[in-house]
């Protein structure tokens, strides 16, 4: 499609040799590696903070807890942490999708519990094949998401109320599903337990994973730059690509080294990382992802561009439901059981906080799935630190609430700066 037939350059006026018009008041333009730095400063000033605050937050948290109790920075604790964040992180990925639309899903906690219960009851109590039960649980999450999406997209009920009602209703359904059996043990050999607890003990696993990831990044960047150069559109200079690759490689191999210090690369972490890469690709490089951002930016605009807004909305809530189910399964694998408290407590707060802390905006149209990883890391670190310190609950509640508040304050202030810098 789309051979551009826009007014051809050979048309009469304006003269084709006209100097490309530049508004003198636009203070910043693209200009290679130096422009990159200027661009960075501009972004900071205009509030496009991206993931910078969260990286700083992680560093601060690790320094504080590390200095309070040295066990915090031990390979063992960090390795545990890398497993513990997977469940929260998975659910947060779904929240990121919903936030990109500028909406919220308050039901993910209950849904994760419901799906874990579904798996446990089907597989453990009713003896269904475990893969099939896993599939049913994930499909259940998607179906729940579809229901939310339907009421939101087709009926026009605000998403936060649909999912608030859902939060209660799915919790009721979970109690119904678990029925009189209460907690159900998931055997250690079950796929769900294995997903969480498997660890590749060979040090090679972690290093190879890191190497593959870095290699892929470098290759993709170089290829893209080559194509752009050939097409005569602005491209990243090789120096910049190398710099970025070096930074990523440093982080990847450091992480691999730490994991290998204790027991090796956890399967759960690997799955989570692969999922993030795939979903990031979907969001940034496919039409579907582009459409999600468009709907998050301007619903009417998206609709008139021929995008089916209800379709996007419903599928995004299905993604959120499915990710909640996946997260619920990992959380069940963590304790090798599904219980009536699954998905309750602070889980909802934690996943929302994770998504927002990671840098995805509450206001729609701005964010990335990597927020889920970074945010879950912050939340997980705080919890782990407080557990090591043995902080009381009342205080834990207040701290979690404050952390969420702090994250959204940063988001809101950065958006305000952006509004002032861009056009309101």
């Amino acid at each position, binding site marked *: *499609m*789309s*051979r*551009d*037939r*826009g*007014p*051809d*350059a050979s*048309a*009469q*006026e*304006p003269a084709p040799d*006209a100097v*490309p*018009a*530049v*508004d003198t008041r*636009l203070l*910043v*333009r*693209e200009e290679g590696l130096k422009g990159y730095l200027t661009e960075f400063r501009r972004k900071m000033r205009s509030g496009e903070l991206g993931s910078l605050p969260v990286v700083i937050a992680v560093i601060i948290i690790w320094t504080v807890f590390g200095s309070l109790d040295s066990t915090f920075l031990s390979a063992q604790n960090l390795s545990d942490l890398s497993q513990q964040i997977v469940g929260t992180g998975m659910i947060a990925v779904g929240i990121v999708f919903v936030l990109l639309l500028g909406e919220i899903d308050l039901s993910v906690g209950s849904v994760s519990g419901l799906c874990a219960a579904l798996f446990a009851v089907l597989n453990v109590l009713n003896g269904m094949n475990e893969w099939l039960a896993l599939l049913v649980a994930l499909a259940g999450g998607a179906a729940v998401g579809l229901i939310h999406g339907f009421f939101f997209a087709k009926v026009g009920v605000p998403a936060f109320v649909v999912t608030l009602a859902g939060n209660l209703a799915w919790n009721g359904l979970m109690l119904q599903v678990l029925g009189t059996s209460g907690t159900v043990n998931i055997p250690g050999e079950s796929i769900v337990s294995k997903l969480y607890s498997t660890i590749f003990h060979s040090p090679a696993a972690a290093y190879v994973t890191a190497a593959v990831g870095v290699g892929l990044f470098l290759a993709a960047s170089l290829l*893209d730059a080559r*194509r*752009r150069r050939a*097409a*005569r*559109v*602005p491209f990243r200079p090789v120096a910049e690509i190398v710099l970025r690759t070096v930074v990523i490689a440093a982080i990847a191999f450091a992480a691999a080294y730490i994991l290998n210090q204790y027991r090796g690369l956890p399967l759960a972490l690997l799955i989570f990382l692969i999922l993030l890469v795939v979903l990031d690709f979907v969001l940034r*490089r*496919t*039409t579907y992802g*582009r459409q999600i*951002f*468009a709907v*998050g*930016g*301007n619903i*009417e*605009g*998206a*609709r*008139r*561009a*021929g*995008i*089916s807004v209800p379709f996007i909305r419903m599928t995004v809530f299905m993604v959120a439901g499915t990710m909640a189910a996946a997260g619920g399964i990992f959380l069940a694998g963590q304790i090798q059981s599904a219980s009536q408290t699954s998905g309750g407590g602070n889980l909802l707060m934690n996943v929302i906080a994770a998504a927002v802390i990671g840098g995805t905006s509450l206001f*729609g*149209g*701005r964010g990335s799935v990597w927020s889920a990883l970074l945010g879950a890391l912050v939340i997980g670190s705080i919890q782990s630190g407080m557990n090591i310190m043995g902080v009381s609950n009342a205080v834990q509640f207040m701290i979690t609430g404050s952390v969420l508040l702090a994250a959204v304050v940063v988001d809101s202030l950065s958006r305000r700066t*952006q509004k002032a*810098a*861009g*056009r309101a």
Partner: protein
Amino acid sequence: MPETPVLTLRGISKRFGAVQALSGFDLEVHSGEVVALVGDNGAGKSTAVKAIAGVNPPDEGVIEWEGRPVSINRPHDAQNLGIATVYQDLALCDNLDVVANLFLGRELRRFGVLDEVRMDKRSRQLLDTLSIRIPSVRIPVASLSGGQRQTVAIARSLIGEPKVVILDEPTAALGVEQTAEVLDLVERLRDRGLGTILISHNMVDVMAVADRIAVMRLGRNNGFFDKRATTTEEIISAITGATESAVTRRQARKREEER
């Protein structure tokens, strides 16, 4: 006109609750023709446009495309036929960059993946051709001025291969220079054989580029005029539905004062 019109509306009606916004509205657009659609506020012009563009399908009436009746229920249907629309309210996505907005809904792909490089290149070419001043095609639309946004919106309608372009008050928010450029653009569209529907309250602009002028009043047709065989006064009285109106009174007064 012997040849089949590319787009024909027949007896289009649309009702919003208590308001009959369109009743029995007719319109024909031929290739290579600029039809101006004029009328007072609330006459139903935008409603007619939205009916054609599939944003608010009509309650009654027939839309024919190149002689065949078609049904346009979604914006996509209109796009697929080859109808491009620039709306009165711009409908750009502020968070996306200029390129993404230009190609929204019809992204270029390579192996199923967005082909940013080609879209980027194509956008630069297009904007250059229209001599649109934008600092970078990679900045979010949020940071453009109203006029810049309007030109982006118009440029966007030309991506794809439209046969009919509908412009709903494209120049209302534009400065004199940008207005002149848009009018140039409209003429270029005609030269390339596209059918164009231009909605405007500015009689000067209408008389400058239109070939035919369709007047609407209270949701109905109130006359079709050939540009070469009519005067601004005639059209204005068709719009206001009276020979005596605030406009004519003003003109009379002015003439008196000048004397």
